[in-house]
């Protein structure tokens, strides 16, 4: 990505996020039942949506890596999953705060979306130890892609099973806030969603640029030390380096 597009992306992200949060606090009307605390919705739900889409996109990139054998797709898959885990931490924290604000408890087991998100999050957390436990770099990339695909298929199944368990045991008391939102709330929500999605894309680009840079550095080092230590220095890393191109 060229530096001017980088700059444009960063500015767009900041502007849209600021506009979104401005709308949240100064423009959008209070929710009728929830009042002020409903404003966490505009942060929590977009973060969750972006994180889940990122997980699924990581699976798609894993699939493309297996199909083409191109290392760049593996790097993409790694970065997507990595950032979605970071976003996932934010989702869980804001979710706990929202639960505390509206129901008086930090954790509510009746809330299927939150519980399934925790399960998905825990599963993706095993991505790092799994990657780290495989030494051979080709095999590491391939196995990580298999993990990404399996986990990507698991995400919707898990949501379905957890939601069903709740609705069968006791019917849901709280309707999802996304159903039947008034226009102004929907607009604010969409602006926030766009802002968070842009933030995700921006951070993905930053991470990829970082990977590329450290890949180049280790390539340089190997070229310089070709006789001294024959290139074993990279093998201890979890993250895929993008050494090509």
């Amino acid at each position: 990505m060229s530096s001017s597009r980088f700059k444009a992306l960063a500015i767009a992200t900041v502007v849209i996020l600021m506009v979104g949060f401005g709308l949240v606090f100064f423009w959008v009307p209070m929710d009728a039942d929830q009042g002020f605390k409903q404003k966490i919705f505009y942060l929590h739900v977009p973060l969750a949506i972006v994180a889940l889409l990122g997980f699924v996109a990581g699976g798609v990139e894993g699939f493309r890596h297996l199909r083409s054998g191109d290392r760049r797709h593996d790097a993409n898959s790694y970065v997507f999953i990595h950032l979605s885990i970071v976003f996932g931490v934010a989702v869980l924290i804001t979710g706990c705060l929202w639960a505390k604000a509206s129901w008086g408890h930090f954790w509510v087991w009746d809330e299927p979306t939150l519980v399934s998100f925790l399960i998905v999050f825990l599963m993706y957390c095993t991505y790092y130890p799994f990657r780290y436990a495989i030494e051979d770099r080709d095999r590491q990339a391939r196995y990580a892609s298999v993990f990404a695909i399996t986990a990507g298929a698991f995400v919707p199944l898990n949501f379905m099973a957890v939601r069903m368990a709740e609705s069968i045991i006791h019917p849901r008391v709280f309707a999802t806030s996304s159903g039947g939102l008034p226009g102004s709330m929907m607009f604010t929500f969409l602006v926030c969603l766009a802002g968070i999605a842009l933030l995700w894309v921006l951070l993905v680009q930053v991470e990829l640029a970082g990977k590329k840079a450290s890949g180049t550095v280790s390539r340089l080092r190997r070229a310089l030390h070709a006789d001294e230590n024959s290139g074993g220095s990279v093998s201890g890393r979890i993250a895929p380096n993008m050494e090509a191109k």
Partner: protein
Amino acid sequence: MTPSRTAFAAILGKDLRTELRTMRSLPAMVLFAVTTFIIFRYGLDRTTLSGSLAGGVLWTTLLFAAILGINRIFVSEQEEGGFDAIRLAPVDRTVLFMAKAAALFIYLCVLELIVVPTFAVFFLPQWSGLLPLIAVLIGANLGFSALGTLISSMAVNSRARDLLVPLLLLPLVVPLMIAATGASASLFDPGGASYDDFGTWLMVMGLYDGVFCLVGYAVFDFLLED
């Protein structure tokens, strides 16, 4: 018989014969399960179980016993060079996946053949739910064997083999466990088996089994490449 059928039968037969002769996994799994029941008896301080508690105890025990077996299914291949042999053999590599999954399925069935009656004798006041439970057991076994084979083959080539199998498998089987306990809870009702949502849960299990059989079948090839 097509070559892959022959290979499938050969690998499955080899696995079952090895297990019969060495008895490496199954006795350990059974012992583990029975001991776990005793721990639950004192941990929960109950002499009889019913409803969702019975389902929870049964499925937790079966899950952890299954993990013991799943940990081991590829160890001999890794140590004795079975992976290299299948790479050299002129057969489709997914045959190995299917044969291993079938072997695991049979292990789990044998395990349950011993453990579920033991569970009934230990804890259940009335046994009317055991017959329909067979359908749930088969559904769960299918899911365990497809996913277990996939995870085990991923973990066996890594440094932290024994650690990774439970770590990767546990979150992945949560939906399967939800469905299995959901379906069995009503079977163990104290007043006799009832069938609330039994069919729905079986359908969830079927969907889960289908998805992971397909995923395993599709990606297994890449785990053997070298």
